[in-house]
C-alpha cells in the first residue's frame, strides 16, 4: 500500500533554499568579477611584485693607476655571508648552527641581526669571510636555505698607508651625504669615496650600476632571470703619482711626522704626496671598527689630516724667496745690492736677531739666500713694507688654495695691513713686517703652496695648478696652458743663483746635494710657540724644518717641498729627506752622502 505523505511544506521550504543558493552563488560570482576583472590589474601588479625582484649589479669601482700604469688601488672579490631572516622559523637554532660553523660568537651574529633596518632586508653577518668558511657554507647549502654568500668587490690598497692621503678611502655613505646632489643616485649602505681622490672623483669612479630582474619563489630564491642590464664599470683613473717615488718619500721620513710633495714644475703634476702619520685605507674597505675610528680621530697627531694641503705652517726662511722676488720686482734692490750684517738689526725700537749671532758681514742677495741671512731681509722688508710683500706673496700663489684636485684644501694666510684692520681692528705695526720677512709671525702656508713656489722659480715664473689625475679612462686630461710669468727673467735668475748656492756653495741646504745633478733649494725653520705644545718636551719645542727645492738647475724636472715637524732646522731635518727623494728621482742609488762643508747652518 502506498502512503502519500503531505510534502507541501517541505517543498515550499526547499524552493526557498534553492533560490537562496542561486543568490549566494551569484553573489560569489560577483565577488570574483570584482576581484578578477575590476581589480585585476591591481592584483596583477601585486603578483608581479611578488614574483619578480630587481637586484642591482654593482658596477666595479674604477681602479687607480700610477703615472706608469702600476696599480695603486684595485678591487678584489670578497665574500659576504648573508642571512635572509624573513622566512627563518627558528632563528635561535640558526644562530647556534651558524656560530658553530663560522666560529663566530652567537652574540655577534645576534647583534648584526638586531641592527637590521627591516625584517625583509638581508643581513650581512660576516663581511669578507675567509674562503674555508664560504666553502663550508656552500657544502651545507641545504641545511642553511636562508643563508647565502654574496660576492662583493672590495677596495684594496696595495701601498697601504704609503699614499693614504692622496688616494683616500671608501666608506659607507653617511646620512648628510645622502642629501647632496653629488650622491643623488646612492642609497644607504653604498660604498662611496670618503677622502682623497676616491672622494674627489667618486662619481667618475663609481660607474653605473646594472640590474637583474629575477623571478623568485616564495622563499626569495632565484628561479629565473628575466632581464639583465649589465653595469658599466667605473673607468680607471691614471694618476700623476709615481708609485716608487711615493714609497721612497714615505720611507725617507723614518716615521717622523711631516709631509712632502713633489711636482713636475712644468705641468703641476704631483709626483709624490706624503703625509705622516697616515692610516691604512684597507681598514676602511670593510667598514672601519669603531674603536679604530675613535683612535684615528682622537689622535693628537691627526693621522687623518693630509698635511700637504691641510697643514698650515709658518714658512720660515723659505719666505725669503717671496721677499727677494718682491724686492727685485719692485726695484727696492738689485741682484747686486748688499747690506751689512752685524748679527742683529735694531729697528722700530726692537732688536731683531740674525741666525748667526756674530753676523755675516757684508752680504749680497746671493749670499743672503745661501746663508739665510735674516738681517739682509729685515733691511729689504723694512723698505718694501707689508702690503707690497703681501701683494707679491699672493701673486706667487700664497694665501689661496693651490687648486689641487683634492677636497678640503686649506688656503694659508698672507697678512696685510688691510687684513689686520679687517680681522683684528688694529693697525699694522711696522715691527711685524720684520718678522714676516723671515716667514714668522702671522704668515702661514701649506707645503703644497711652497712646492708650487719652488716650481714657479724652476719653470721661469709660471704658477702651475698641482693635480693628481692624469687621465680618466682613456681620456687624458689636457695640460693647462702656462699662464703669464709672474716674475721677470732677471728676478728668477737671481733667486735661482741664490737657491743653487744654498745647496752647492756651502749654504744651509748642503745636505741635499747630489753628485750628478745640481739641486737648488731653500731651507726654513718654522718656530713652534712653546705654549701651544701640549707636552713641552725638548722635542716638541723644536721648530718644524722646511726644505723646498727643484732640480736640475737648468730645465728642472722636479720641484718639491718637505716639512719635518719638530725636526729642528730645515737644513738638518728636511734637506736629507728631500735629498733621498731627489736621489731616487735622478736614480742616484748609491750616492755617497755629501761631506760637511766648513760652514754651519
Amino acid at each position: 500500500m502506498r502512503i502519500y505523505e503531505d510534502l507541501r511544506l517541505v517543498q515550499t521550504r526547499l524552493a526557498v533554499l534553492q533560490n537562496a543558493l542561486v543568490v549566494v552563488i551569484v553573489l560569489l560570482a560577483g565577488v570574483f568579477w570584482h576581484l578578477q576583472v575590476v581589480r585585476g590589474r591591481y592584483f596583477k601588479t601585486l603578483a608581479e611584485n611578488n614574483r619578480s625582484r630587481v637586484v642591482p649589479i654593482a658596477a666595479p669601482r674604477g681602479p687607480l693607476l700610477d703615472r706608469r700604469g702600476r696599480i695603486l688601488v684595485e678591487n678584489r672579490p670578497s665574500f659576504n655571508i648573508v642571512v635572509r631572516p624573513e622566512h627563518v622559523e627558528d632563528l635561535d637554532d640558526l644562530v647556534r648552527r651558524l656560530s658553530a660553523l663560522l666560529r663566530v660568537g652567537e652574540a655577534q651574529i645576534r647583534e648584526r641581526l638586531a641592527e637590521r633596518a627591516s625584517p625583509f632586508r638581508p643581513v650581512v653577518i660576516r663581511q669578507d669571510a675567509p674562503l674555508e668558511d664560504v666553502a663550508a657554507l656552500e657544502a651545507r647549502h641545504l641545511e642553511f636555505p636562508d643563508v647565502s654568500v654574496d660576492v662583493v668587490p672590495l677596495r684594496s690598497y696595495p701601498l697601504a698607508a704609503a699614499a693614504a692621503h692622496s688616494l683616500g678611502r671608501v666608506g659607507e655613505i653617511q646620512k648628510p651625504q645622502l642629501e647632496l646632489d653629488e650622491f643623488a643616485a646612492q642609497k644607504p649602505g653604498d660604498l662611496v669615496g670618503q677622502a682623497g681622490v676616491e672622494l674627489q672623483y667618486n662619481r667618475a669612479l663609481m660607474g653605473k650600476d646594472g640590474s637583474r630582474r629575477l623571478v623568485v619563489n616564495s622563499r626569495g630564491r632565484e628561479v629565473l632571470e628575466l632581464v639583465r642590464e649589465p653595469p658599466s664599470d667605473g673607468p680607471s683613473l691614471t694618476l700623476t703619482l709615481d708609485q716608487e717615488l711615493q714609497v721612497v718619500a714615505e720611507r725617507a721620513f723614518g716615521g717622523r711626522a711631516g709631509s712632502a710633495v713633489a711636482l713636475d714644475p712644468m705641468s703641476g703634476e704631483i709626483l709624490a704626496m706624503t703625509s705622516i702619520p697616515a692610516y691604512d685605507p684597507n681598514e676602511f674597505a670593510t667598514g672601519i671598527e669603531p674603536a679604530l675610528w675613535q683612535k684615528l680621530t682622537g689622535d693628537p697627531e691627526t693621522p687623518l689630516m693630509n698635511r700637504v694641503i691641510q697643514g698650515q705652517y709658518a714658512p720660515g726662511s723659505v719666505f725669503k724667496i717671496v721677499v727677494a722676488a718682491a724686492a727685485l720686482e719692485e726695484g727696492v734692490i738689485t741682484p747686486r745690492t748688499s747690506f751689512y750684517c752685524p748679527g742683529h738689526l735694531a729697528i722700530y725700537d726692537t732688536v731683531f736677531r740674525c741666525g748667526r749671532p756674530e753676523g755675516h758681514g757684508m752680504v749680497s742677495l746671493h749670499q743672503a739666500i745661501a746663508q739665510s741671512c735674516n738681517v739682509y731681509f729685515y733691511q729689504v722688508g723694512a723698505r718694501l713694507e707689508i702690503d707690497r710683500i703681501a701683494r707679491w706673496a699672493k701673486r706667487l700663489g700664497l694665501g689661496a688654495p693651490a687648486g689641487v684636485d683634492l677636497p678640503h684644501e686649506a688656503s694659508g694666510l698672507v697678512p696685510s695691513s688691510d687684513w689686520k684692520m679687517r680681522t683684528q681692528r688694529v693697525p699694522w705695526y711696522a715691527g711685524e713686517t720684520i718678522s714676516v720677512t723671515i716667514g714668522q709671525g702671522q704668515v702661514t702656508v701649506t707645503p703644497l703652496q711652497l712646492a708650487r713656489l719652488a716650481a714657479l722659480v724652476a719653470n721661469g715664473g709660471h704658477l702651475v695648478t698641482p693635480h693628481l689625475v692624469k687621465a680618466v679612462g682613456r681620456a687624458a686630461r689636457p695640460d693647462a696652458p702656462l699662464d703669464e710669468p709672474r716674475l721677470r727673467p732677471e728676478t728668477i735668475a737671481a733667486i735661482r743663483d741664490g737657491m743653487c748656492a744654498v745647496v752647492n756653495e756651502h749654504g744651509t741646504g748642503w745636505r741635499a746635494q747630489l753628485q750628478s745633478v745640481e739641486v737648488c733649494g731653500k731651507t726654513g725653520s718654522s718656530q713652534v710657540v712653546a705654549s701651544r705644545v701640549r707636552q713641552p718636551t725638548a722635542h716638541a719645542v723644536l721648530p718644524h724644518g722646511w726644505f723646498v727645492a727643484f732640480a736640475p738647475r737648468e730645465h728642472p724636472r722636479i720641484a718639491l717641498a718637505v716639512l719635518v715637524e719638530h725636526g729642528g732646522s730645515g737644513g738638518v731635518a728636511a734637506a736629507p729627506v728631500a735629498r733621498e727623494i731627489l736621489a731616487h728621482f735622478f736614480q742616484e742609488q748609491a750616492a755617497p752622502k755629501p761631506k760637511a762643508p766648513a760652514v754651519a747652518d
Partner: protein
Amino acid sequence: MPIDRRLLLNVDWVLMGATLMLTAIGVAMIHSATFSGASSGLYVKQASVVGFAALGMLGVLSLDYRRLADRAMLFYLAAAALLVYVLFFGPRIAGTRRWFLILGLQVQPSELAKIAAALFVAKVFAEMRKDNLGLRDVLQPGLAVVSLMALIAAEPDLGTAFCLVPLFLSISLLAGLRLRAVGSLLLAGLVVFGLGWKYALHDYQKTRIYTFLDPSLDPRGAGYQKIQSQIAVGSGGLSGKGWKQGTQSQLGYLPARHTDFIFSVLAEETGFLGVLFVLALYLLVLWRALEAAQLARDRLGAFLVAGLSSVIAFQVVYNVAMVAGLVPVKGLPLPLLSYGGASLLSTWLSIGLVLNVRMRRFAN
C-alpha cells in the same frame, strides 16, 4: 547486488555528469598545483580514489535509502565509536588526530560522520508526524548532533564540525521548525561561540580570526594566506594565466594550494571564466540535488537529500568565500576539487544517496 533496470533509467545523469566533471577538473588542478614539487604524483592518487568512490557510490545506489535509514542508529553509533577511537588511537599529525589507517587505507571518521548524521537526523525528523515543531521537539536530535560535533571539534577540526550545523538546521527547517525557533537556535549558537571564544578556542584560531579582520597585523603569518590567495585570484584576470602557468601557485606563494586553496589555483590559472564555469557546475549539482529532494516520494528522502546537500553547499560557499578573502581561513576542503581521498569519497557517497532518493521516487 543487482539493481532493478527500471531504476537505472531514473538515475540523474546530469547530476552524475556534473559531479564527474568537477572531479576531473579537481584532478587537473591538483596536477597543476603539485607537478613541480616533491609530491608530483598526487593527482594520480586522487584519480585512483575516484575508482573507490565510484564503487562506493554503486554500493549506496544498490540499497534502498529507506533500508539504510532503518539502520541510522547503528551508523550513528558506529561513527561516534570511530570518532572516539581516532581521538585516542589516531596518529598525531601536526597537533591533530583526524584519521587512522586500516589495511593501508586512511579512514577519516569525521567525513563518514557527516553521512551518518544526515541519515540519523533525517530519520528522526521523518518520524515526527507533525508540521509545526518547537525547540523542545528538536532537542533530542540536536543533542545527538552536538555530541558528534564535539567529538570532531576535539580532534581538533572545527571546520568539519561546523558542517553539521547547516545539516541540522536545513533538515529541521524542512521538518517544520518554527522560524522563531530557528532564530533562537542561532542566538544560542552565538552564545556558545562567545563562550567557546573565551574558553575553548586555541590561540592560533583566535589569531586567524583577528588577522582575518585586519590582515596587515601579520602579513607574513596568518594574514599571509588571505593576501596571497587574493593576489592569486585577482591576478588571474578574465581568462587566467593558463594551466600550470600561475605564478602565485607555481612559485609557492599560495599555501595549501592543492588542498584548501585549490580554488585559488583555478582562479589564477583559468581566470574569471573558469571560476564562472566551476561555480555554475556547483550550482547545477546543488540545484539538481535539491530538485531530487523536491521529487522525493517521502519526507525521509527529502530530509536526507537536503541535509547532505546543505553540507556540500556550505563547504563550497565557505571555501570559495575564503579563497576570495571574505571569511576567515579554515581548514575546510572544497568538495570534489580539493585533494584528499576522504573528502572525495564522502562527497561521492553523499551524491550517491541523492541519486538513490531520486531514482526511487516512483518505487514502492
